């Protein structure tokens, strides 16, 4: 509370980005966790809540006659433009918000003050909702080829960083000395370990960081480690090593004593560069792309030029292309793949998880996607706090790596509308909460399980909101490997995420909501018919107690063009 210089400002205007006529006047309140704008219009209680941890930047513009502008950019891509009547007030709000949106200590994070009405026992259970071990046993592990390694049980190997999970799967033939030796030859100790195993053909996806090869260094244990991975795939006589970086970047790393595998030193590997750009390029690209989204009444050319010059879709394509390469190697060639970049927690996480989505229908279900994020991102040490700027820190560490993964999934959903159990809202909600710090999942701190809530069980409880009505587990589209097209014209701009809050831009009627209402209605009809059958033939009885009127919801905005709610055609008997 000590950071709030001014708890309340009156006569603040909230401008509408598209049409200035629609701006609203109200009171701005600053609380410990939210900034709240309450419109003063009699009869309406219109509130806009902004979570401080979602605030990305606060910009105060030069004072004008009408007041002083305050521009707030949020991490969920909401942009708010307030006009505060007096400059001093604007100044105070500005400073308060800047401080409130950049917590310095973990304890200030929203997840520690977020207290939904859930008792302690239930809260603890939330954290048991996902079990990664169960996912590995779903893959058929451990087996004779892959074993659970005790080597990192107490985070001993991966020091100085403890960025690996305790439970790691390694080739059965990899002995502890080989693992420890390999670990010492890899950036931050991140030795090759299993990410995904295909029980159909024994091919596996492994991940690591770059080797400390410099210009000529070798490590026998590391070479043995890769050989062990190859041996764990009895059907294949070679494996791919995929360096997801552009070749130039990898070469530059050699000067720093890092680098990439020399094909001559490792037996039976095929080495491949993929060329995904680094976190800095991605950060700048997203900034430029968002700039194009925010243009005021842009022409078509302004927007398309902005989109092109941002390079954003090019990067999305690069990530997806890499995922496809790996998925095909595993599913079609039956060849194992070792993936790395520099530290193996950004591009590697993206590419491994995209490959998993392509390969395994399970990861295209609600629970499966959560497991996947938990596995390839959370457990393998993606630096959410840095990348999402949870705490005040180095702005150069911020990068939308996870956004790109979620977008890749969205692009796939656009191409395979029946193959995913979840809808785009699910991805957008996950995105929001990765940044909101409302849940403890994406904050790397030991105390979290004791004090915070888990996003996954929240999503699971509300799964009705996230179900794709077109999904059918038995649909041919749902089965096996997805083979998306990556021709440039197959990539779309994700308006639903990046222009999420520009309501006027979205379709005024949602096919998905319509279908969901239909399915709900169908279910009720099925129940009615079933209860009739229970009573038996000859007696006509229609169970009507649980009958609710289904209003086919619409996303009518501003009351225009919505679907009129449809009364049920059935009258009561």
């Amino acid at each position, binding site marked *: 509370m000590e950071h709030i210089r001014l708890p309340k400002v009156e006569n603040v205007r909230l401008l509408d980005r598209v049409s200035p006529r629609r701006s609203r006047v109200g009171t701005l309140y600053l609380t410990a966790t939210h900034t709240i704008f309450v419109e003063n219009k009699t009869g309406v209680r219109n509130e806009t809540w902004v979570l401080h941890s979602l605030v990305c930047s606060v910009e105060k513009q030069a004072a004008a006659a009408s007041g002083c502008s305050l521009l707030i950019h949020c991490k969920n891509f909401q942009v708010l433009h307030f006009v505060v009547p007096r400059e001093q007030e604007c100044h105070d709000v500005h400073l308060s918000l800047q401080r409130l949106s950049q917590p310095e200590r973990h304890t200030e994070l929203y997840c520690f003050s977020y207290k939904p009405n859930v008792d302690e026992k239930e809260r603890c259970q939330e954290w048991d909702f996902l079990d990664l071990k169960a996912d590995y046993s779903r893959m058929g592990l451990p087996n004779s080829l892959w074993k659970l390694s005790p080597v990192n049980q107490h985070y001993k190997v991966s020091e100085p960083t403890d960025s690996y999970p305790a439970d790691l799967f390694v080739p059965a033939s990899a002995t502890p000395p080989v693992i420890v030796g390999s670990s010492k030859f890899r950036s931050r100790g991140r030795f090759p370990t299993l990410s995904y195993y295909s029980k159909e053909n024994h091919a596996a996806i492994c991940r690591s960081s770059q080797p400390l090869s410099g210009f000529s260094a070798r490590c026998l244990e590391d070479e043995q480690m890769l050989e062990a991975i190859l041996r764990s795939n009895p059907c294949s006589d070679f494996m791919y090593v995929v360096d997801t970086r552009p070749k130039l970047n990898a070469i530059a790393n050699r000067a720093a004593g890092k680098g990439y595998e020399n094909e001559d030193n490792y037996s039976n590997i095929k080495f491949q560069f993929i060329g995904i750009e680094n976190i800095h390029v991605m950060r700048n690209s997203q900034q430029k792309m968002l700039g194009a989204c925010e243009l005021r009444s842009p022409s078509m050319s302004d927007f398309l030029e902005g989109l092109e010059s941002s390079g954003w879709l090019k990067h999305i*394509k690069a990530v997806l292309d890499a995922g496809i390469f790996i998925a095909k190697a595993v599913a079609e060639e039956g060849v194992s793949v070792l993936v790395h970049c520099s530290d193996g927690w950004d591009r590697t996480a993206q590419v491994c998880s995209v490959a998993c989505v392509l390969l395994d229908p399970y990861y295209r279900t609600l629970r499966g996607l959560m497991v996947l994020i938990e596995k390839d991102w959370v457990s393998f040490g993606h630096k959410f706090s840095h990348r999402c700027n949870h705490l005040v820190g180095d702005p150069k560490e911020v990068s939308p790596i996870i956004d790109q993964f979620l977008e890749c999934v969205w692009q796939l959903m656009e191409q395979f509308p029946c193959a995913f159990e979840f809808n785009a809202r699910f991805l957008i909600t996950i995105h929001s909460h990765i940044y909101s710090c409302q849940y403890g999942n994406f904050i790397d701190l030991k105390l979290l399980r004791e004090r915070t809530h888990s996003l996954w069980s929240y999503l699971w409880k509300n799964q009705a909101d996230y179900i794709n009505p077109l999904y059918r587990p038995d649909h041919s589209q749902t089965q096996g490997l997805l083979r998306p097209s990556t021709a440039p014209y197959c990539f779309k701009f994700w308006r639903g995420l990046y222009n999420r809050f520009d309501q006027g831009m979205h379709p005024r009627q949602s096919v998905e909501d319509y279908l969901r209402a239909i399915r709900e209605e169908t279910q009720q*009809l099925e129940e009615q018919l079933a209860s009739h059958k229970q009573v038996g033939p000859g007696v006509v009885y229609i169970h009507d107690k649980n009958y609710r009127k289904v209003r086919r919801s619409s996303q009518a905005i501003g009351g225009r063009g919505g679907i009129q709610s449809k009364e049920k055609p059935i009258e009561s008997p």
Partner: protein
Amino acid sequence: MEFAELIKTPRVDGVALHRPFMPTVEGTLCLTGHHLILSSRQDNTEELWLLHSNIDSIEKRFVGSLGSIIVKCKDLRMIQLDIPGMEECLNIASSIEALSTLDLLSLMYPFFYRPMFEVIEDGWNSFLPEDAFKDLESMTDEWRLSEVNKDFSVCPSYPPLVAVPKYVDDDTLKKAATFRHGGRFPVLSYYHKKNGMVMMRAGQPLTGTNGRRCKEDEKLINATLRPGKRGYIIDTRTINVAQQAKARGGGFESEANYPQWRRIHKAIERSNILQESLIKLVEACNDQSHSMDRWLSKLEASNWQTHVKEILTTACLAAQCIDREGASVLVHGTEGTDSTLQVTSLAQIILDPACRTIRGFQGLVEREWLQAGHPFQQRCAQSAYSNSKPRQEAPSFLLFLDCVWQILRQFPCSFEFSEGFLVLVFEHAYASQFGTFLGNSTAERAKLSLPEKTVSLWSWVNRPQELERLTNPLYEANSLVIWPSVAPQSLLLWEGVFLRWNRSSKCLDEAYEEMGHIIAYNKELQNKVNSLRRQLAQLETEDPLLQSP
């Protein structure tokens, strides 16, 4: 002339046909007067029947004695025929070229086509101006149907019957016609039942450089205004283009002579620019280089989406003037046969729920495009693969369909028809067995006796099995005005036309099918429950014991 003269080699065996997303077919290639046919002569393999009039251009390639002809169609499809033998290949190519560029309308396929289906309703009589006027009469008595153009002498591109203000006589119309480009005097395009406002369309006024005026023209359009009310003139050209038109005898309505009207200029491009835009867009879509930068910059450079945005914006403006401002509107550009019609027809899609039904849309195309004198024959003579310099070709109508698709995407439940219907109309506008889109005006159609000698597309569409196929399963009548978003983020590339042959649509089709299943199953259960309810009600009346206490 006999077609046989043009067909040098009527038949070649051992021809391989390559089509996008379909297995290669080997078989016999036959050329007839109107079709290119490839048949494997086996059961279960689909034959290719391609109308010569659908061929936009061809390209020949030779590798040794194997020749290939790449056939580029007006519906944007590209197919490849591998023909053994150099001479056969050359003969086939020159025959296709000759047959696909026949100028004589009376040789076109619609004059030879005999329907293989039962015509339930003759589409040529489905949308007559007098019937449309009956609907208008039921709403207002301020308009009359004038026969001033019954022999097409006042305006060759207008139909014989046009709706005009009741108290404006035919002499006034004749004089006004001399003051408008192509004789296209202002006529009624749309009557907005909600508030009685109207939309009219015309050709540009012929003011010339010395500011000619025409009292009759002023009287005619002022007759549509309510006392004390102002109207809007939407000129689809920029003020600069409109100024330049004066030098060629055209121009625009000056404030001085039309004080009751506010003029707004928009920037819808003209025909040759649109044609170039289409060519560039299709080239971008066919570029196989797979570089994202290149694709986006080519898409941008084609300007197609810019045209879509501009046309939609202007249509929204017209609709806004009518519905929001409660004002009447006059729309024109230069000739009044292209951008004008795009705007008036799209404004009706926005304003009038009837135009969003299958039949209503056919009526709209009839009224605002065919009878309004859009020169289909000229505009659709060539499509995106044309090698020759465009003369009067322009994708005005395709742009209109694209805009309708954009609105459909934004209001997926408010249209009775599905995307497939729009694609079908696009295909038939460029090449068809039906006579609907032949000719440039009602006068030309009458001269060719099209209604007597050819079948109407609407005769084919308006049969139960076709209607079912073209119906949007999500449709629920929406009586409201629907305002589309014209933000660049909201406007998409029409994949169903422009990427149709470049990417497999299998998964999207499956999703559409799945949607149909969900809705059909729901309807089935509803029917079951309803019939049980009826049974129950019947039992209750028959057996008093069953009635609740």
